[in-house]
């Protein structure tokens, strides 16, 4: 059974590695990821938000919804740990 699992993971890894051969080159400006929205952000983000740091502009404004739920996820993790572990203090 262990040998089967090893073979299965090796085959899956080989398929995934084979799939990476179709990827565009590292930093290729013509790759699909760089031609869709990235050019819009690079050209317009500073005029539209007056934030020189594009990462902050995208994170806080264009993808504010995503950042909000990241915060909520961390908040929920904290609440879960508190509700599971913390015991009420004896008076």
């Amino acid at each position, binding site marked *: 059974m262990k040998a089967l699992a090893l073979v299965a993971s090796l085959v899956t890894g080989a398929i995934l590695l084979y799939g990476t051969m179709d990827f565009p080159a590292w930093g290729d400006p013509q790759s699909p990821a760089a031609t869709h929205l990235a050019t819009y952000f690079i050209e317009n983000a500073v005029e539209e*938000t*007056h*934030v020189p*740091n594009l990462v902050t502009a995208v994170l*806080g404004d264009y993808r*504010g919804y995503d950042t909000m739920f990241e*915060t*909520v996820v961390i*908040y929920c993790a904290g609440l879960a740990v508190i509700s*599971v572990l913390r015991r009420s203090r004896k008076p």
Partner: protein
Amino acid sequence: MKEVRARAEGRKIGESLIIQTAVRILVPFIQIFGLYVIVHGHYSPGGGFQGGVILGASFVLLALAYDLKFSLTHMSERVNLIFGNCGALIFVGTGVLTALFGGLFLDYSALDKLIPLGPIEWRSFGIFIVEVGVGLAVMSIMASLFWDLSSDGELDEGL
């Protein structure tokens, strides 16, 4: 020799004058650096998450160098929870406020109707408000996670 050993055994494990003094000097600078990372996120790498983690790490450092009780005297459990809730509320509240003022959810330029700064300046300032909220929430959750996990939720002894 016997006297030295007796004195050493009387102390708690890991308690060291050098480390405690170094931490006491370092912690204010770490906290100022955390605030800087939050506030300067518009111009340099950084932002709410990173700055919040640095601020939370300063309390973890206090708890490691002294003990958990000592770090709780600097940031009490109750205040910490209030900070965490406020942080999450600031973010969500900003979104709700923008929706109430007629914009899309989290479209900060709608807040221009509240205080006329100009819609583009509001988008910049809205990001800042939101980053402060993220920083508060992350700081409080980081410290509270460490306190709870290191003391089994008792908040007395800790590491």
